[in-house]
């Protein structure tokens, strides 16, 4: 989750041609990547698609540390090794689909600020969903600040240690409980300040 603030920074401050491209075009591009993933059933097509996405990744000058985000979903693709009975070609097909999907979305996130993505989604989704998305996005940053403060308290109480599983579970649960209560208090204050600023079920974006 620490990567989220870094991704947000990259999306807002990046200067490559992909950063300057319209968010609508990038989302359409992502939809085409998804279409490719869903329809392509041969390795060569998927390898070509992955190659194109990797090329975009590197020419957009996105830092390599973000690349590890694209590999995370492979952990779950491993379950398919057991479904297929260790068929190598099938496993490669699945892994390539995973990599194309994750590389595409990470590319989109790293070059487009979230509010721009939500604004485009607002044209197809009901305003209620988009408002909820926006509020969740904002809340993640609020909770990350709370989590940072809570981490110090957590370490003072022993943090997370394999040697003391019960204490560790207790510490993690208290941290999440604290996060939830602080979050609820923050949400009540957020609602009051939004109402004072004229909030009526919908968030309006600059340029509307």
């Amino acid at each position, binding site marked *: 989750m620490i990567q989220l603030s870094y991704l947000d920074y990259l999306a807002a401050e990046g200067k490559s041609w992909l950063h300057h491209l319209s968010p609508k075009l990038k989302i359409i591009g992502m939809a085409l990547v998804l279409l490719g993933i869903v329809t392509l059933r041969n390795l060569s097509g998927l390898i070509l698609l992955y190659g194109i996405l990797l090329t975009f990744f590197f020419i957009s000058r996105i830092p390599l540390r973000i690349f590890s985000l694209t590999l995370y979903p492979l952990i779950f693709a491993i379950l398919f090794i057991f479904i297929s009975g260790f068929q190598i070609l099938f496993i490669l097909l699945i892994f390539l689909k995973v990599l194309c999907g994750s590389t595409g979305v990470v590319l989109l996130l790293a070059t487009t600020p979230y509010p721009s993505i939500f604004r485009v989604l607002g044209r197809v989704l009901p305003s209620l969903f988009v408002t909820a998305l926006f509020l969740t996005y904002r809340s993640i940053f609020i909770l990350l600040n709370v989590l940072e403060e809570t981490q110090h308290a957590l370490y003072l109480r022993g943090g997370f240690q394999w040697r003391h599983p019960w204490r560790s*579970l207790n510490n993690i649960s208290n941290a999440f409980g604290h996060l939830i209560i602080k979050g609820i208090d923050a949400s009540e204050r957020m609602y009051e300040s939004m109402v004072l600023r004229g909030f009526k079920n919908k968030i309006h974006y600059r340029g509307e």
Partner: protein
Amino acid sequence: MSHIHLPDGVLPVWLWVSGFIIAILVGAILFRFIKKEDLARRLPLLGMMAAAMVLGASVEIVPIAYHVNLTVISGILLGPSLIFLATFVVNVILGLFGHGGITVIGLNTLVLSIEGILGYFLFRLFWSLLRRLTPAIFLATFLALFCSTLSMIGVVSLGASHYEELIHQERKGIIEFHLSKENEDQHQEGVAENKVNLKRFIAIVLPLGFIGWMMEGVITTLIARYIHRLRPDLLRLEG
């Protein structure tokens, strides 16, 4: 563990499209039970709980990507209608991170909201029967996660013929040439190899899932006890 971390392009098109349609229908039905003014007032709370779920999903308790969902405690705090919207939002944000596919958002929303909604009703049931917080929360969480894992297995099983097609697709050569005597043996062997092994998948998922249900049950119980100590009004235990 019940969250379907399936990539795009693995499930058949009819399955994930149906997932979206059913999710929209369920959402439309659930929102009829909530007043517009109440919804607007609780949107920031929904955002916070969804953010807590997203953060929970990104904190690995055990390596190999075990993480808490926090769906049951969110369901208890938000109620059945709002937890559905919250799980949709969580899945969109996780999908945008590559933590699960974009096309499976509908199916993931249905599976995760089963946890939240069942968790809410089971907690109310066990609280009214037992009048003790710890067993009520633990049992509600354990059973809710068990049911959502079963539904996840059901969803994956529905795509079995599609996986077989994908396997078969890759086994086709450019030129097919067989000697007549070997033809039948090879064909039978090919048929056996093209079958997906769902039993093996279930045999792996259920024990791993059991560990997850226990862990999330314990963590959710401890979180609920913490909330009950500081803000008992949030759990709405009276009545």
